[in-house]
């Protein structure tokens, strides 16, 4: 039987905001061609489209831990569809030096196991200064998976994204 957090996540994946973005090719749940089935809850694998860059993929996969979804922020990192494991640091998307992109997707913090962003609970828990500095990006139960996907999709499609 599905847990309340899983039902809430499933409802958000069925929402107009998620579906409209999926229709545009911005994001989606990893399909059967990548994974026969999604990992056991609270883990989910999603993909996010990225701007075209030489020798870089047109999408990146992320594996998120969605425990207590919506009450608690997700956490996770990039995932490799070929090895079905965490993406090697060398294969992570790279950004312009000192840019916001480079900071959010940094690999020199926590071994690259979480995103350096207020929407990631591991990062948020360690940064009590962030609520004062970035109040609009502090996760609360009004946020959904679409907020995460839009934020990372925007970064992966901005001018600071350099490729691999």
């Amino acid at each position: 039987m599905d847990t309340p957090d899983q039902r809430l996540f499933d409802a958000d994946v069925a929402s107009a905001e998620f579906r409209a973005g999926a229709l545009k090719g911005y994001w989606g749940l990893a399909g059967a061609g990548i994974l026969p089935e999604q990992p056991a809850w609270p883990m989910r694998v999603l993909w996010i489209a990225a701007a075209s860059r030489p020798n870089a993929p047109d999408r990146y996969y992320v594996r998120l831990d969605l425990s207590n979804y919506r009450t608690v922020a997700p956490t996770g990192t990039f995932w490799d569809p070929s090895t079905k494991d965490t993406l090697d640091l060398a294969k992570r998307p790279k950004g312009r030096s000192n840019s916001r992109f480079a900071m959010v997707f940094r690999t020199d913090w926590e071994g690259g196991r979480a995103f350096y962003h207020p929407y990631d609970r591991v990062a948020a828990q360690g940064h009590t200064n962030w609520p004062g500095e970035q109040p609009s990006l502090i996760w609360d139960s009004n946020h959904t998976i679409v907020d995460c996907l839009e934020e990372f999709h925007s970064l992966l499609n901005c001018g600071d994204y350099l490729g691999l």
Partner: protein
Amino acid sequence: MADEELELYIHSQGAKPKIAVARPHEVLRDVLVREEIIRQGQDDVLIFVGEWDEALTEADEIEDGEDRHDPVDVLVTVEVLELRRHRHVHVHKCRRVRVEINFNGQTKHHRFSPATTIAVVTRWARKKFRLDGAAGAEYVLRICKTDKQPRPSEHLGELVSAPACAVCFDLVKEITPQG
């Protein structure tokens, strides 16, 4: 196949978008009534379809420009309105949304269609304030006198209500997480 159901995204003022399922031969008004978006006989709303980005082609020297997005006839079918292509339907009392954007002591104005996304307004603002390219990527819109930064996919129509039909933004540099 020709009569295949399609998913529409219905946007209304001050509300989250909803999904409606429609068939090509259905009259749009009937779809909106069935989904309880409008009432039978209601004629005080305007219906726009699609997502509008006309402002992005506006010449830089134009001040206080206005989009030309016309509302559609709600008695026309889903097929004739090409909603398989457009997908988004906006139900609104505002014909235009008057947007004011402040940056670096300057203010720019434009009257946008309610079917304009925040992503388009942001690109328009970066262009008007000459923040194009990678340097402009970190500038985002924040609603004036708040800490709210609407998501790029939100539409202006979801943020405003009649009769004001207006919103003010500050163009701000997004903070890079640190510490």
